[in-house]
């Protein structure tokens, strides 16, 4: 199949053309108007907008959208220009510890990777944080996700599975662990996953004096259960708050549930 025909049109433009010989020409004029190549009072544009209701509607909608984008730009510049750096905001005290822990995690994971490549066992390090943050590119998270993907694919092939997802209407979302428990792992929940979506797990400390401190995070998993190695949860605090978020294929959050748990020693 040719990409560009003798007019230089690609498949999409040919589809436009099939809707009517003047359709593509109208789009080109609107495109030129949006690019500023045709003035708003250009007689060709004025005449087209008077004659074609579809063009008029689309042109107005695009001008509205552009105006919204411009307003957002002005708003952003105003916010950034007026940040009050002299007055700490909620969470300001978390910036340094979170980023240092993420950087440390990244170095540790790179060390593990290098050790595996060289066939050596990474030296046990007293530097392993007692408050690990799984972070964004955690190899552990990738491994958990990879194992879960296979299970998710198997489930998605099941013809008896009901794929209908009631967004934000998960009434059966029982989370475990909840309340007093002997072990935090496995983490389980009964939320539905939209096609192409992901679960995200976040764990915070719930110990007085450090409530809200980020403990661990799994960026993406695809099953309703995550089993973590004892070495990972061993250093978690004795009281945690944890959350499951559900994201759809466009990475929009569609649901979230939280629970608190205490580990009995």
């Amino acid at each position, binding site marked *: 199949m040719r990409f560009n025909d003798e007019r230089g049109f690609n498949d999409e433009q040919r589809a436009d053309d099939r809707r009517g010989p003047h359709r593509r020409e109208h789009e080109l004029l609107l495109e030129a108007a949006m690019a500023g190549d045709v003035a708003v009072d250009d007689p060709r544009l004025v005449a087209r907008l008077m004659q074609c209701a579809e063009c008029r509607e689309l042109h107005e909608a695009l001008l509205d*959208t552009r105006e919204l984008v411009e307003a957002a730009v002005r708003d952003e510049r105003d916010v950034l220009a007026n940040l009050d750096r002299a007055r700490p905001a909620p969470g300001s005290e978390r910036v340094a510890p979170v980023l240092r822990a993420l950087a440390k995690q990244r170095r540790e994971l790179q060390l593990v990777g290098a050790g595996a490549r060289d066939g050596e066992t990474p030296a046990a390090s007293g530097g392993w944080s007692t408050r690990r943050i799984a972070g964004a590119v955690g190899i552990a998270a990738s491994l958990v996700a990879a194992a879960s993907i296979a299970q998710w694919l198997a489930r998605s092939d099941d013809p008896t599975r009901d794929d209908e997802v009631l967004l934000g209407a998960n009434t059966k979302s029982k989370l475990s662990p909840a309340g007093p428990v002997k072990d935090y792992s496995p983490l389980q929940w009964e939320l539905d996953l939209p096609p192409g979506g992901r679960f995200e797990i976040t764990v915070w400390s719930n110990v007085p004096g450090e409530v809200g401190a980020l403990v661990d995070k799994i960026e993406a998993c695809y099953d309703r259960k995550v089993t973590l190695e004892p070495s990972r949860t061993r250093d978690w605090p004795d009281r945690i708050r944890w959350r499951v978020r559900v994201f759809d294929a466009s990475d929009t959050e569609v649901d979230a549930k939280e629970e608190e748990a205490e580990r009995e020693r």
Partner: protein
Amino acid sequence: MNTNEPTRNDQHRGDLELVQEVLRDSAGALERLIERLDCVPLILRERNVRSGSPLNDDELTDLTQETLTTVWSKLASFEGRASLETWVYSFCMHQMMNALRSKKRRPQQAGDEALDIPDPSARPAHASTFQFEHLHATLAQLSDLQQAVIRLRHFAERSFEEIAVELGLSESGAKTTYYRGMVRLRGLLAPHAREEFA
């Protein structure tokens, strides 16, 4: 004009170098990044205030941590086309939108009127700040190229000629990508495409 002042591109190049140094684990780079990303809680606080303060301090703290981990995970994708603060701002807006949606799903308490999100299709003269959060979240749904062109055109105020050079397009290709991106953006912003405000 003071020729000793750094140009816009120089400032952005400096930001790109900083990020690359952080990713290389260069000495001192992380602490400089921490200073810069101190803007995250400040941006979120300011956005919260402009939106009628729907989130409390604990929620803002959680949101700060969420946003930082997301920014960190995407650090390698920073290309220096905008300042670090502008780049981070879009993440703050996206995470704020998710937090607002999440809170709206929970049973509303008295005083949660700030969560009553107005008609998202309202003309810009009546645009609320929630529309800005939604706009940023919706921009992220465009193709990478369409996003880049729109951001360079509006947020970085580049000409189509400059955009074409920066992205390796022809000038006409940049204009077409811009047009198609704006058409798609409008479609995604339309009320029927957004179930959560039904």
